[in-house]
């Protein structure tokens, strides 16, 4: 019996060793350890043994079962390992092959610029105000203190829909509307489309875009104007940017100024972008003219404020180094796709 069991064990181990695939491993288990397996059957014959032999053979049989089971699980592990290795080997790829194409589009560079400007001012507590592009002449001119006989009102300069309705030449009418409709304090920006009778060329377009800003509150000073716009310039062009305010004239503001920033390309040394001046003119600004406040129902003795305006197309061109305004309106994909 003892010999029989040992031979059974040897056979089983030989069978196990011969197994090459996981799915046939179970067959070996069933053949020896199953309900009708060889070991099970062998153990059933234990009844015939003497009382002395029985515990010895029983012990041996349990040892052999354990040994077989250990071997099965070891073999199972080995085969699984082998299978994974085989799978890995088979499945290896050339990881340097190109990825599958997923086309993402992008926003128009003008929108990206506008978004950037909006974020800066939103962060300073401004809201975004909007208004009609086709606007009453009085909102576009009269309330903005533009003299009655000013040439900006001419048919050569401004598009007219009716005698008293124009395509707005600036987004300032939005400021007028906000001032008339809301009580100070006010902090708004108004980006949008504006129109002037200019034939299209590399730097002009009859349709272009502006963003204007307005702050009205008690005790707003010219130094607030400088501080706010200086901060804006630093946020847009970088911490090292310096600003220069030059006196200028606008009907909407008094005093008025133009703001230059140090050239972001050369840092102020002088280059092609800044026509060797080291400075780039970026916006017009000033303290809101008391006439404008009065036209809009705000008492200039109680409130003061500042306003500013900038050309978005121009800033976009400067920012991306675009040399021809027409490219912005042409929409050639080879252009559009450059602004991811």
């Amino acid at each position, binding site marked *: 019996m003892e010999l029989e069991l040992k031979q059974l064990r040897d056979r089983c181990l030989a069978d196990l060793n011969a197994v090459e695939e996981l799915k046939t491993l179970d067959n070996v288990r069933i053949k020896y350890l199953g309900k009708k397996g060889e070991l099970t059957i062998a153990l059933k014959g234990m009844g015939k043994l003497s009382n002395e032999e029985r515990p010895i053979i029983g012990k041996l049989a349990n040892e052999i079962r354990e040994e077989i089971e250990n071997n099965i699980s070891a073999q199972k592990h080995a085969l699984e390992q082998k299978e994974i290795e085989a799978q890995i080997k088979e499945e290896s790829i050339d990881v340097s092959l190109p990825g599958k194409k997923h086309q*993402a589009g*992008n926003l128009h560079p003008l929108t990206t610029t506008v978004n950037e400007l909006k974020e800066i001012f939103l962060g300073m507590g401004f809201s975004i105000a909007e208004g009609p592009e086709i606007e009453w002449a009085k909102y576009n001119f009269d309330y903005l203190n533009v003299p009655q006989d000013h*040439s900006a009102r001419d048919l050569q300069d401004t598009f007219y*829909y009716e005698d008293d309705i124009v395509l707005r030449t600036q987004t300032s009418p939005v400021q007028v509307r906000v001032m008339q409709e809301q009580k100070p304090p006010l902090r708004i920006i108004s980006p949008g489309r504006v129109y002037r009778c200019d034939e299209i060329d590399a730097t002009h*377009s009859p*349709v272009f875009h502006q963003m204007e800003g307005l702050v009205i509150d008690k005790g707003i000073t010219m130094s*607030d104007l400088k*501080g706010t716009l200086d901060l804006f310039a630093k946020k847009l062009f970088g911490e090292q940017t310096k600003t220069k305010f030059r006196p200028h*004239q606008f009907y909407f503001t008094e005093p008025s100024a133009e703001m230059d920033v140090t050239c972001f390309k050369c840092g102020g040394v002088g280059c092609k972008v800044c026509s060797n001046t080291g400075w780039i003119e970026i916006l017009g600004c000033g303290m809101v003219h008391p006439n404008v406040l009065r036209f809009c129902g705000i008492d200039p003795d109680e409130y003061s404020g500042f306003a500013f305006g900038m050309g978005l197309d121009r800033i976009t061109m400067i920012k991306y180094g675009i040399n021809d305004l027409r490219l912005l309106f042409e929409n050639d994909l080879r252009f*559009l796709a450059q602004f991811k």
Partner: protein
Amino acid sequence: MLVSLNWLKEFVDIKMSPYDFGEALTMSGTKVETLTVVSENVANILTGKITKIEPHPNADKLTVCTVDMGADERVIVTAAKNVFEGAIVSVAVDGAVLANGTKIGTNDFRGLLSHGMFCSIEELGMNTDLFSKEIMEGILILPENTPLGMDARELLWLNDVIIDVELTANRSDCQSIIGIAREASATLDLPMAGVTTYDTVESTNQIADYLSVRIEDPACPRYVAKMLKVKKIEASPLWMQIKLQNSGVRPINNIVDVTNYVMLELGQPLHAFDYDSLQSQEIVVKTTTNKKIVTLDDKERDIDETMLMITNGKVPVAIAGVMGGENSEITEKTSLIVLESANFNKGSVRLTAKKLGLRTEASSRFEKGVDPELAGMAALRATQLLLEIGACEVIEGLIDVYPSVASLKKVNLDINWFNTFVGISLTIDEIAKMLTRLFFNVEKSSDYVLEVEVPSYRLDIDLKEDLAEEVVRIFGYDMIPGTIMGGETMVGGKTPVQKFEDALKNILVGQGYYETLTSSFTSEKRLHGLNSQLDENLVPLINPLGEENSIMRHTLIGHQLEVISLNYNRKNPFGRFFELSNTYRKNTKSGELPIEEQKLAISSYGGEDYFELKGVVELLLEQSGIKYPDFIAGGSDFLHPGRKAEIFVDGIILGEIGEIHPVVVKNYELPKRCYICQLSFKALFDCSSLDNKFTDLPKFPASNRDLAILLKADIPAAAVETIIRKNSGDILESIDLFDVYTGAQIPDGYKSLAYALNFRHHGRTLNDNDINPVIEQILGELKRSFDAQLRE
């Protein structure tokens, strides 16, 4: 405006470098665009007198000139034809440099040495545009009294710096040398010299024997006339010619040059008439019914009764403030001149010049506004110069018609207000000092209020804010500190609509679409390409830039197609575009502005089909919280009749989608298949529901059923889906149409739609007893409505 720095220095002793001066002017409000030296290179060119001219022994075309250089004598060989004995010329001596950088030495000309060369206008670097061809091509002949051996750089102001300044519209007083000199004086805090005017005490009023002046129109606030006897009409002196040249004005003769000189110097346009050809003893300023006038430039101009004229009482002799008439022009025969120094209303001159399409130095000055006070001074300055250069003798007396003399404006400046407004703290004395530098008369009316008298020429100063700017620009904008606004904290931020715009754009970008930017203009012609009737509520412009930009667009479709066409024709193989932009429509209510509506257009070509675009639109709607949009066959005529749909949500139309009609494809030169969708942004926003709320994850399993339904091919799938939904109660979780099949085993004219239905109850597990009745009800309803059958 061009300003000669040398001329400016006659009024203000500017010692700093031209660059620093330009910076200082810019920072005080007179923007300097460029600084240009007349001739940077010229060196060692001296004046000399030709004393002898002899033929060259070896060359017919050359002559040999002996030249007296003052200190020495030298021989110059020249090919120039306009030289003569006694002529004073500019000589480039050995080591000289010409304007173009050429160095001059001693040269051998056919066996004779030439110790230098004579120079032309161009070689000296002067503005060749201002000289006649004859003068330009020859050697520059200098006036007889020119000293010899003098450096041409000094003599001809070749070292002058021409400052190009950009003036703001309100500073009409700066349109002159003295205007800029006043700014320089205030900016640099330097004294300013005055001008010499004719101030002889006259004993008679001789002028009355010749002339009287009448103003019949308020558009002429003042008319000053002085008469002079002409001694000789000739070229004006060199110094005067040079100043005119360096200001960009062409010298003509002594009389005309003086009128131009005074205009440049003081800013008052002047005009000189030939008295005899006026054929009248009076000048009347009025509008006339005359139709024509020939102006000084020999052009016949159409005039009308709105234009102010200078007349001899009967016919116009000049267009007021714009240009003189040929009929009263100064000629060589002129013996008496009437010098006009008048003031004309800026609006009147502007309209006249605009109507005539004629802008002159005079009209552009009047258009910006000229101080009426200047007229008298300018007449006397011109008289002084005409006498000084020996051109004229004076006729005693002055005509000055000046009906209402304006008194000087006074504005109070409260320095406490000023300091608060600007955000600085200056003392009343500091402020008074700066205003005085700007020629304001300042008096303290209390410890903190200044009473400021405004000079007559400062037409731009009316309010305390105007004075604030004056003080601040002299103090220096760069001296104002930058502060962060105080006051109430403001939250700011975007509105829900603005956020929704951003979200839509981001989805489209993520799906591979490029945002476009197109113009707002279109035209009837461009719209005709869309195969549709013209909308009757278009918004046409009164003054468009050409027909193709004559209407404000009411749709984005045309522009999207133009974008596709451009890209297709430039061989970009495919394109996906979108634009969220305004469209415009006439307002049928009178007295209101046109209606502006934002629309969203999405378009594509190359490798896409209708369902790809539809999928993107569905995604947009889904992301907007819109659950069950209806795509119902139909839509505009620019779309393919068999491939177009209108999009509805709860009966509200959002827009339309489809393939472009083959006719439109042809009209716009498009690729064969392009797809487009246009949605109303407002409708989309109104239908959207973006307030997401969390719902518990399902606790019970779902049951899936597949249904293949056989029905007539022309029944829209959407209708089948609607029936499935309606008959499923609230246990239907999702429907997925996973197959549309025609072909083998399907009868002609029929199709098979295969749906995967997903049922789920939130409170328990569903079994066949729950689902089977639902399926039966669906199938029953499909059979009743469409005679549809379950396909086995």
